């Protein structure tokens, strides 16, 4: 099969799958268009035009038309675990598309504690209904880590008092795809930092299914919604990196695309916040930027409608999209080599220098003793 034929088959299969969803609107798109004076012919012309724009051969226009008729039926269940709601806050700031468009036109937001109108018993009914009705077809988004210590009793949700751990395991079973939104759901996050008193874990550690990890504390609204839209547009999961993060967002290091990279290569560094270098926009490496060890698209997409990102605001990257970053990347105002080793209150270089000093003292003692030692007799 050539590529186009394969793609056509893939598209057809996807649409067949979508067609099995219960219709969300009694009124079909065609009926609706007729009301607005758009004929079937106009619609097919539009489909052909879109097909041309996508540089696909004409048979695809058929698929494009079908896709438009079928669109916007992906049920989404969003669960909150041990979290701070920062990821939901990030979600509501989306502009790709806007939140209202996302909810009205693209997904069917079945359960989301921060946004849903129903509470308590009724909310739980919504969850149970969605898990049953859309079994095998819903997207599951999780925000927050899963406390596992003491059988997960550090978190219960719902009238029935289920632990977060039980809820996640149950919800994961029927999910078409699981997305861990944010570093907590992905890798455990702040509550999993040393000494992790609640045994908090990332979702992928407690379910036996592949999980897409959206690192970030929180991930930008674009990385959350972009990943949802990828699934909605292409009907499959995006390519993933070494930590199961979508490559389209986490494919490059922050350092690679940093606007201050030229300053780094030139050896121009901010020595302390607010100094001459800080005003000039020098590299923040020496005040702790962890951009060189962090994969994310912050420098190109930025946050909040491209308004800013930490480096633009003069603060180094803290590596928030990486596993275990609260421990690995701290101290956040110092480069990696100068971090205090936990429990030792010393940097690696201090310890290295101390060992070196001890070695030199040992050597000195040995040398001095050698002066007094009996010469070797053979």
């Amino acid at each position, binding site marked *: 099969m050539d590529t186009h034929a394969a793609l056509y088959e893939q598209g057809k299969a996807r649409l067949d799958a979508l067609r099995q969803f219960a219709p969300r609107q009694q009124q079909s798109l065609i009926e609706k268009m007729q009301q607005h004076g758009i004929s079937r012919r106009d619609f097919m012309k539009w489909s052909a035009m879109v097909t041309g724009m996508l540089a696909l051969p004409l048979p695809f226009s058929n698929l494009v038309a079908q896709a438009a008729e079928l669109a916007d039926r992906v049920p989404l269940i969003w669960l909150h675990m041990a979290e*701070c709601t920062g990821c*939901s806050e990030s979600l509501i700031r989306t502009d790709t598309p806007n939140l209202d468009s996302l909810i009205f036109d693209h997904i069917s937001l079945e359960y989301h504690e921060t946004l849903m109108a*129903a*509470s308590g018993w009724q909310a739980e009914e919504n969850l149970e209904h969605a898990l049953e009705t859309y079994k095998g077809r819903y997207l599951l988004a999780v925000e927050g880590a899963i406390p596992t210590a003491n059988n997960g*009793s*550090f978190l219960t949700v719902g009238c029935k008092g289920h632990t977060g751990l039980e809820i996640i395991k149950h919800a994961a079973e029927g999910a078409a795809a699981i997305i861990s939104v944010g570093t907590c759901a992905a890798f455990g996050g702040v509550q999993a930092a040393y000494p992790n008193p609640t045994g908090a874990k990332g979702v992928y550690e407690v379910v036996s299914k592949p999980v897409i990890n959206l690192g970030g504390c929180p991930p930008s609204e674009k990385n959350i919604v972009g990943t949802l839209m990828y699934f909605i547009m292409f009907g499959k999961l995006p390519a993933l990196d070494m930590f199961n993060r979508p490559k389209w967002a986490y494919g490059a290091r922050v350092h690679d695309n940093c606007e201050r990279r030229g300053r780094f290569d030139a050896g121009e560094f901010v020595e302390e916040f607010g100094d001459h270098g800080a005003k000039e926009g020098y590299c923040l490496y020496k005040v702790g930027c962890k951009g060189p060890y962090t994969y994310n698209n912050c420098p190109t997409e930025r*946050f909040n409608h491209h308004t*800013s990102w930490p480096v633009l605001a003069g603060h180094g990257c803290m590596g928030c999209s990486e596993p275990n970053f609260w421990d690995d990347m701290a101290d956040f105002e110092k480069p990696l080599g100068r971090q205090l080793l936990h429990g030792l209150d010393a940097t690696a270089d201090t310890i290295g220098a101390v060992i070196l000093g001890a070695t030199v003292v040992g050597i000195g003692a040995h040398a001095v003793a050698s002066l007094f030692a009996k010469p070797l007799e053979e």
Partner: protein
Amino acid sequence: MSKRVVIDPITRIEGHLRIEVEVDENNVISKAWSSSTLWRGIEVILKGRTPMDVGLIVQRICGVCTYSHYRCGTEAVENALGMTIPLNAKYLRSLMQTSLFMHDHIVHFYHLHGLDWVDVVSALSADPAKAAQVALKYTDNPIAAGEGDLRAVQERIKGFVDTGKLGPFANAYWGNGTYKFTPEQNLVALSHYLKALEVQRIAAEMMAIFGGKSPHPQSIVVGGVTSVRDMLSPARLQEWKQKHAIVTDFIVRGYQADIVMAAEAFGAEPSVLGGVNVKNFMASQEFVLANGEHLFDQGVIMNGDLAGVSDINPDWIAEDVTHAWYSADAPQHPYDGTTIPNYTGFVERDTVYGKLPTLDGDGKYSWVKSPRYKGEPVEVGPLACLLVSYARGNQIVVDTVNGLLARTGLPIEALFTTLGRTAARMLQTLIAAQEGLKTFDALITNIQSDETTYIKPDMDPNKEYIGHAMMEAPRGSLSHWLRIKNGVIENYQAVVPTTWNAGPIDANGKMGPYEASLIGLKLEDPTKPLEVIRIIHSFDPCMACSVHVMDFKGQELSEFRVSPNGQ
């Protein structure tokens, strides 16, 4: 015969909150319990880390008031190290605080609280032309409430509802008798719900201009602020001012008008005319103006006595854990508190939904502690903030509050209600937004002679430090307390707004503001307790904030035992 009602999860809040009430045969609430069902242990995690990172870590307590803990933690360290930060840094922090309040309160009123007041389904039967006229009753220049706007909104929602798949609006309390707006009023409010989605995004961008991003901005450090380039850029400054103008415009023409509308529609609805049963209030000072003045005052009001407002005495704060899932012998002051988890689980019993695990009201039942001031529960939040400033004769606050009362024809007592609490939040937003420009102007004046944004902290690893910071977060008075030893955090404590409000009963049987607010409330249908949810939402719960960062003092991990089977 009394019946138990369980509400879990309380949605449209930050975090995990469970409310249980007991209603009598007339469906009047006689007992109430408030419980947080999540513990994250951040206080344990802070120990042994550098004070320079404290702000970033405590920021992760909450992603909603995402900036409050960041700033409070950082300022507690600065206080411990005896630092005074540059004036520019103070102004920038205050402007970020302004951005936060504008964002947070708009999102709370429309997207979290709004659906308690607005019946979405009812809006579908409104006449858009009539609704446009209705909107003009509450302001001369309504926003997003022209006939065309309203018709577009109605069509959009109609199309959505027609699908039969209501998504986030499914299975709610539509049609409940305590929804008092007319269809036209509902349509206006619904239009503002959608408009506010747009506006809150702009408010978040205001935060990002000086903060780098939102939520979880990243530009504050011990010693000052890092966004010096944004501060020195005329384009960035004006970008903030422009976005500020857009959001303020919405607050004045939308948010304010909707509150006036709600005051009219709900003015005779008994379920929102109670709800303030703890009549003690506490607030911290907030928003730096020029000359070191503050926009809002600090103080404590006991027993609703506005004439007797006094200064906060931090020594009178103690936390009780009699009914919280921790072990301790007696109430503890923040500096001497402990946090030893002691989870006892639920008790099975009959409820209106059948047999369910329920809170053990006689024993321990929440991860939230119960802070007390002089042994008394205290309410914090925008209402407390306005009352304290009002009692102190703060001219801006007095004028604004009196203005609203005059406009709605309500007496001052109307403030001590659920409706008053919700209105106070709007007034606080309005004042913070409008007066925020004074801070902005003070910054502009100061930059002309001084570009300093940072002073390097000087910490001697051989010395011990103690410090705290108090400020007003969107949900009320917030304070962080810490000790530094050997250059790292020795113990940490945050006394958080929602802890004050949501705590369980104390050793003397005194209820906190949440629980007290529900007593005497009559429910239309105990299986659909909209009235309870509305009152609880009026506090703007933030559970992640309330549960953590209690104190951690010299305890080793081995002391953190939780009995596995809940006994």
